[in-house]
């Protein structure tokens, strides 16, 4: 007898229209979805909206889920919600280069990303700098880097979430990391990370 709390069983019930079962899936994945949206959009409010849109969309389309791993499928929907938001804005979210210049004391406008657990001031500054650099990446590279390095997805999962090949994923991750390295490099202090 299948475990009623196992994800496949919950998924089956959710596909049958069981809203309570779907909300179990929401509980399981909402943190990852929210953080993906947060890193992609750089704003807590926009991330909330995109995450909620993603779950609505997932609920409406879960009957199309043909099995396999649910997480990449859900992340694909979340990434689509982020891309929709970016398109709605008409531009990539950008932050002032001056604000992120090494030595600048001005906090970047991603205060929401620094909310949460108490951190040291230096760590917060580093996180803000990394987040600002992430937002300057092209959306496809940003998505690949976030899924790989922040969400811990395997290349194959990223390829599934982004509907592309593993080779393309590898290239996007490499180019994204390289751009980040160039942006973060001058400010990086040895042993600071």
């Amino acid at each position, binding site marked *: 007898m299948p475990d009623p709390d196992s994800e496949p069983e919950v998924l089956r019930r959710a596909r049958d229209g069981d809203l309570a079962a779907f909300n179990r899936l*929401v509980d399981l994945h909402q*943190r990852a979805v929210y953080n993906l949206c947060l890193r992609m959009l750089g704003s807590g409010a926009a991330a*909330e909206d995109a995450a*909620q849109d993603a779950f609505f969309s997932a609920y*409406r389309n879960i009957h199309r889920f043909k099995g396999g791993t649910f997480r990449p499928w859900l992340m694909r929907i979340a990434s689509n919600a982020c891309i929709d938001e970016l398109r709605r804005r008409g531009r990539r979210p950008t932050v002032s280069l001056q604000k992120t210049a090494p030595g600048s004391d001005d906090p970047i406008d991603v205060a929401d990303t620094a909310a949460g657990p108490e951190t040291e001031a230096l760590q917060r500054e580093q996180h803000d700098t990394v987040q600002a650099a992430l937002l300057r990446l092209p959306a496809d590279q940003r998505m690949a880097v976030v899924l790989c390095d922040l969400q811990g997805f395997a290349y194959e999962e990223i390829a599934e979430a982004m509907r592309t090949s593993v080779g393309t994923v590898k290239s996007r*991750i490499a180019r994204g990391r390289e751009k980040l390295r160039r942006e973060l490099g001058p400010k990086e202090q040895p042993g600071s*990370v």
Partner: protein
Amino acid sequence: MVIRVNKLLRFFGHAPDVNALSAQLDGQLDAVAASRLAAHLASCEACRAALAGLRETRDALRAMPELEAPRSFRLRAADVEPRTAPAPSHPSPTLRWAPAVSAIAAAVFVVALGVDLRSGGSSSSTSRSPLAVPQSGSAKSNESAGAMSGSPATDQTAPGSIEPGAPAAARPQAPEPAGAAQATLSAQPVQPSSTPAPAARPIPSPTSELRAAAGRGGSSEGGNNPSALRVLEIIAGAIAVAGGAAAIVVRRRRGVGP
């Protein structure tokens, strides 16, 4: 993803192969490629520096905190349509018949419009006929008024050269530009709408021509039919549009759900 060794080595020059280095960080190189890369790194300062930079970048990314969701994203039943519910309630009978009514009204509209255009086209063609004939009097009057100068018709015909009783075929068939026709039309507010005058038919006066047209057995050129057609077109068009909108509403309501 496995990086081919030869491809890896081909790119290894002075510029580090970022793809290979990044893949190495994620353990995506096979054993052979990884060992060759290690050998290369032992002798290439640039690639070692690039790899170290990529590693630091990756570690900085990994150090980013994963925040708690600020609120629950659970869906409420009130916010979602029941996906497995049967089709939504049937539309009212009026809305149910909206597509058919709209289609019929559209057909009536098209027919009425066609009849209207046809009658309008025939009347325009008949009204054009007299203009194709050099109207020396009118052309001359235009010329004298400065509306059309140098018209070939005015060059070839003299005022009063066409007698009222002359056959149409006997009239000079000099081409007349459309502009001249327009000018003639504007110079003569009421143009005879008859076909080319038959032989021995006197050029009718506008009043007599209209009278004759009105008396032609209730043809489409009758005075009341165009306006009736217009009314019919307007009504049918309005019904078609309203019915179409209602049909769209019905379809959208049906479309909600899975």
